[in-house]
């Protein structure tokens, strides 16, 4: 099956001061399949939100897209955002639900007016009645009450607002929905409802696939088929979520997994250790592997050159020197994951 979205070697930097660049996304490639949820996880500052903006073609000064290509359904999609150029693909091919989207609803406008604005920005001649019909139909299809259209944002709960935003972001039937931390301000019940809505959007084929950006690994474990782990603007590891979580190959992923608080730890009373230190300064990232200053398996090669991509099992790859010298060469029977430390 051909891939729905293919992005190669994306680079996007933020301009600082007169001549500096913060290399927020530095050579990220990814691919998305139809009907799939791809999780993008990492700490604050790893570049996942920037990646979301680049994929949705909404990058704006001081964020500049420095390189990379993206194809959706085989057709090339322009990455540079801004007001010039053809913006017709935004929202219709790839749609972004940015962080804190539910707070961006205009408090003085009813939801239905917002819907009208969104649809009108893509088709200036659309009639208001038509936009309402489309919205109502979509809400019904997704088992949400149509009365939300007549409400003001403050009359809706946080969870309902976020779901409304999700519906509006997909009204134009984009092929890909990128959700940046959609669950962060929500209670657990509302989180579940929102994720159920997103799954419903996929199952009803309203959208083709979802990129879910979050730092909460338990959420990805439960909804994402594949997950990529980002660190300091680059990819560390990509693979099926089950494998990335339960058989992590990259040292950073291993540390992340060990640092995650889970319900089960109460019964075992194990002490959980978080990651020490912090992400590097992206205006002057460390040479070689960007994680090496915090990595307990760091080798000499790690500070000197960019690590190779290692494939511990089919569909699962990681970028790491330590892994490269520990993993048996690909001719051997490969699929038993990374070697133990």
């Amino acid at each position, binding site marked *: 099956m051909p891939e729905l979205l293919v992005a190669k070697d994306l680079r996007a930097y933020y301009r600082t001061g007169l001549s500096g660049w913060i290399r927020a996304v530095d050579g990220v490639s990814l691919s998305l399949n139809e009907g799939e949820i791809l999780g993008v996880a990492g700490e*604050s*500052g790893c570049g996942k939100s920037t990646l979301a903006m680049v994929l949705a073609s909404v990058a704006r000064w001081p964020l500049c897209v420095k390189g990379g290509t993206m194809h959706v359904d085989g057709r090339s999609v322009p990455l540079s955002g801004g007001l010039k150029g053809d913006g017709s693909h935004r929202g219709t091919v790839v749609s972004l639900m940015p962080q804190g989207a539910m707070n961006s609803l205009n408090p003085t406008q009813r939801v239905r007016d917002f819907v009208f604005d969104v649809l009108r920005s893509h088709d200036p001649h659309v009639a208001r009645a038509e936009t309402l019909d489309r919205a109502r139909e979509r809400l019904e299809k997704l088992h949400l009450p149509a009365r939300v259209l007549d409400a003001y944002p403050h009359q809706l709960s946080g969870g309902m607002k976020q779901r409304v935003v999700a519906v509006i972001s997909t009204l134009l039937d984009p092929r890909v929905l990128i959700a940046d931390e959609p669950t962060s301000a929500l209670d657990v019940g509302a989180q579940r409802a929102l994720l159920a809505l997103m799954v419903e959007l996929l199952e009803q084929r309203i959208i083709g696939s979802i990129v879910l950006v979050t730092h909460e690994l338990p959420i990805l474990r439960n909804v994402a088929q594949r997950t990529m782990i980002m660190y300091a603007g680059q990819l560390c590891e990509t693979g099926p979520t089950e494998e990335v979580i339960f058989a992590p190959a990259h040292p950073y992923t291993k540390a992340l997994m060990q640092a995650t608080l889970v319900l089960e730890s109460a019964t075992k009373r194990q002490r959980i250790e978080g990651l020490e230190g*912090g992400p590097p300064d992206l205006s002057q990232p460390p040479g070689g592997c960007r994680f090496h200053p915090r990595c307990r398996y760091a080798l000499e090669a790690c500070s000197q050159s960019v690590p190779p991509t290692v494939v511990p099992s089919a569909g699962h790859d990681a970028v790491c020197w330590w892994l490269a010298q520990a993993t048996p060469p690909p001719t051997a029977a490969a699929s038993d994951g990374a070697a133990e430390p």
Partner: protein
Amino acid sequence: MLVRVRFLRTAIHSGRFNTSLVLVVLVVLFALLGPVIVGHDPNAVVGSMNASPASHPPLGTDNFGRDELTLLMYGTRTSLEIGAIAGLVAVLIGVVVGTLAGFYGGVVEEALMGATNVLITIPAIVVLILLSVALGSRSAVTMGLIIGVTSWPWTARAVAAQTSSLRTREHIDIARLSGASGFGIIVRDVIPYILSYLGMAFTLQLATAVLTEAALSLLGLGPTNTISLGILLQWSLLWEAVRQGVWWTFIPPTFFLSVVSFGLLLLNSSLDEIYNPRLQGGGGSGA
């Protein structure tokens, strides 16, 4: 401090800020250095009455034969002086009333804001007229004081609103938990956060005060025995300058009044623009 550096960087790039700053600085220099450079006594008769700029450069003489340019310099200086005193008084009273009302809330807020609202509804010009009439002779400082004392309600309301919203912030709770007194919290944890706002309030109050002084002077209730822009205008009115076509006695003061208020208002709006998308260093949440 980094905040200041960031401010300067954004400020320098703002066209509005640069223009308005230049305007204001030029006017201030004109008012302060001018008299020093030119060195006349403004009241000295230097030429014939109502001599035009053609015969008596650069700006002619008024109906008493005094040099118009010198009069303008001294006038601008006095007007700015009055404006500055008024601005200072208004901001000081406004800050005290506003922070107390905004920080303590409850009864204190109701009482103070109630009084403030009542004062706002009384037309300041009426009060000023009455005060000016009551005070037989008025110096520039007195003018500044009375204008300041009638214009603080605006600043007080704005400061109360700002303080009210700051009151719920966590650093205030932390200060309380560290045993800081109410006064201490206001001085150390509230005022630094509204300083930029107070700066803007001062510029606005200054601009309005200059115009208020001009209005009062036109009514004959301005500072006595001094020269201000308003008084220059009053004289030109009294001596029928318009009818006689003696434009150099009323156009220059009007021009300077406009430049002063425009410059200050533009400065105020550019400062607002600079302070408002304020990036707080709140990113990054690693251990």
